[in-house]
């Protein structure tokens, strides 16, 4: 096996991707992590489970999502652009892929309840959705600040029958919602699965979530071939925790495509972070000189996280993937650009990837390059915020 063959393979038996990953959790949660790992290994090698996962993705979540050529934006930028349309998946982003996998696994483990953390609410809505579908009880932890910023997503979760718990500790945002979900999990691990929303947390989450998201890249690779494109020169995705990026990268890890992750400048764990341990994993984190975790700051709640999934830290360290950062200012014009030229309003998270492509066309992306943009989510959730910003009200 050459080194390339092993890129984005399984982590080692303790969940390490090179120097990163692992399982840094209270002993109380270790058995649950071990049980989950075993359940996942077992399910993922069970053809029936895999078939059910694919059936639900197809019948319920709307997969495969298409790859859309972007002719007008391509012309504008001098590139050959394609978008993998996770915005068309049920609930409006790639998050549903992961929660469908995890809720099916929850059922298989015989647990009647899931908990989840959420920032802007996308993962919370997705989890509440998948839980409703299977009749699982669902509690979502959300920073109090975010429950106020995203009232409507709170209400969507409630409509779906979930209970939303505002988290008042720490910075009252995503990072603290994870802490609180972990604290809750300790108390109910016997009958509750913690449905983590990105490729982060203790082993097996970063690996499992990547596996559940790899459908994105697997589909996209096949679709690009059908379109006659073959391997694109670059695959570009925004990175919060890194699940949509990991999912799309997975389809191209063994190819020659450049893999490019775009972080929010205010949450750029690769560019501005250093190795550390948080939320059960060793990865790159924003932290101060004493190892206290710093708050991330981004216009997009979904990228407002001070860490990154451990596999990304490893892909960065081994230089298989490149990571760049985009500031808030460039995000809005990228959102408008894609909307006006192609009729697709992207999520603010996704707009980071668009902004990077627009900025680097003719730069880091030579003119004429073929580029696959992972269009991780739709912008409907962000429209009120964007409007307020553009009108100078926020």
């Amino acid at each position, binding site marked *: 096996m050459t080194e390339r063959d092993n890129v984005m393979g399984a982590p080692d038996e303790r969940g390490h991707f090179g120097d990163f990953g692992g399982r840094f959790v209270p002993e109380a949660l270790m058995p649950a992590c071990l049980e989950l790992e075993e359940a996942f290994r077992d399910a993922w090698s069970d053809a029936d489970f895999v078939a059910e996962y694919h059936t639900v993705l197809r019948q319920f979540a709307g997969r495969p999502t298409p790859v859309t050529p972007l002719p007008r934006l391509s012309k504008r930028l001098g590139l050959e652009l394609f978008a993998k349309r996770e915005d068309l998946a049920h609930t409006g982003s790639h998050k549903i892929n992961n929660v469908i996998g995890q809720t099916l696994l929850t059922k298989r483990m015989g647990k009647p309840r899931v908990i989840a953390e959420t920032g802007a609410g996308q993962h919370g809505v997705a989890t509440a959705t998948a839980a409703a579908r299977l009749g699982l009880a669902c509690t979502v932890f959300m920073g109090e600040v975010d429950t106020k910023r995203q009232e409507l997503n709170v209400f969507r979760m409630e409509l779906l029958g979930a209970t939303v718990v505002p988290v008042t500790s720490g910075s009252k945002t995503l990072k603290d919602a994870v802490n609180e979900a972990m604290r809750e999990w300790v108390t109910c691990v016997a009958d509750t699965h913690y449905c983590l929303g990105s490729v982060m947390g203790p082993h097996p989450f970063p690996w499992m979530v990547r596996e559940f998201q790899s459908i994105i890249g697997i589909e996209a690779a096949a679709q690009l071939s059908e379109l006659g494109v073959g391997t694109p020169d670059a695959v570009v995705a925004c990175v919060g925790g890194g699940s949509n990026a990991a999912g799309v990268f997975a389809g191209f890890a063994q190819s020659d495509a450049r893999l490019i992750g775009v972080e929010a400048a205010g949450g750029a764990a690769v560019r501005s972070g250093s190795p*550390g341990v948080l939320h059960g994993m060793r990865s790159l984190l924003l932290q101060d000189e004493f190892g206290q975790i710093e708050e991330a700051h981004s216009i997009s709640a979904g990228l407002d996280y001070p860490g990154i999934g451990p596999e990304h830290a490893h892909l960065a360290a081994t230089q298989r993937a490149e990571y760049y950062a985009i500031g808030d200012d460039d995000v809005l014009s990228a959102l408008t650009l894609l909307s006006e030229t192609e009729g697709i309003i992207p999520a603010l998270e996704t707009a980071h990837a668009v902004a990077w492509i627009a900025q680097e066309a003719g730069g880091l992306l030579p003119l004429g390059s073929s580029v696959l943009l992972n269009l991780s989510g739709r912008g409907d959730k962000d429209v009120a915020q964007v409007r307020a910003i553009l009108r100078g009200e926020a």
Partner: protein
Amino acid sequence: MKSLEVTLRHVRDDGRKALVPYFVAGATPDWTRHVEAAVLGGADAIEIGVPFSDPMMDGVVIQEGALRSLERGTTLESICQELESLETEIPLLAMTYYNIFLHYGLSRAAGRLRDSGISGAIVPDLSLEESDEWRAACDESDVATVFLVAPSTPTSRLRDVAQRTQGFLYASARMAVTGGASDAGEGPRVVASLREVTDVPVYVGIGISTPAQAASAASFSDGVIVGSALVKIILDGATPSDVESFVRSFRGAID
């Protein structure tokens, strides 16, 4: 055997139940006075909580203590410096999350602990599986690594953890983060299982907030750890003498 364990085995051999109060270092300006008061009150060892921004295993009281401490500018270094002036014979243990030590540098951290009189460390988010580097660093400096077990820990795993822990085993009485609880939890069952696999001293913690609870826990274990209940009175403004009588009340109950 690390010095910590030697000391704590002596306590047990003396037929004494160990009382281990927990403090958030730096939560108040006079926190070292509180520690001294606890010693006077009858503590057998002290847990020194080093505040971390994301205390995943802690409930609201200790979170609040950590927040106040961080706002006061507390760091691992500042704590160690303050401890150097503390005069006490009983063992001190540092309790914090792994990132604090990792960031400081593992060997450097273990050395710094030892130099400030700390002989053990409890790192609740450091699993056995990930602990090799830290234990190696601690070995260089005679710092004991104390592990936790929980009611969820299966028997096979209890043995592994008990084999690795140094000083004592921290048995969580319940599936919960730190904070008060009204029932006895699963302490008796957890401790009984441990007795079958190890003779290391077993202390019970998590949710012990009254002398009566402490007495009950002490009846089937080698010691008790009292955290949130104590931190709460300190955050509410307790003086060193309040702390002393608080600890004394627990002492009386378990003796």
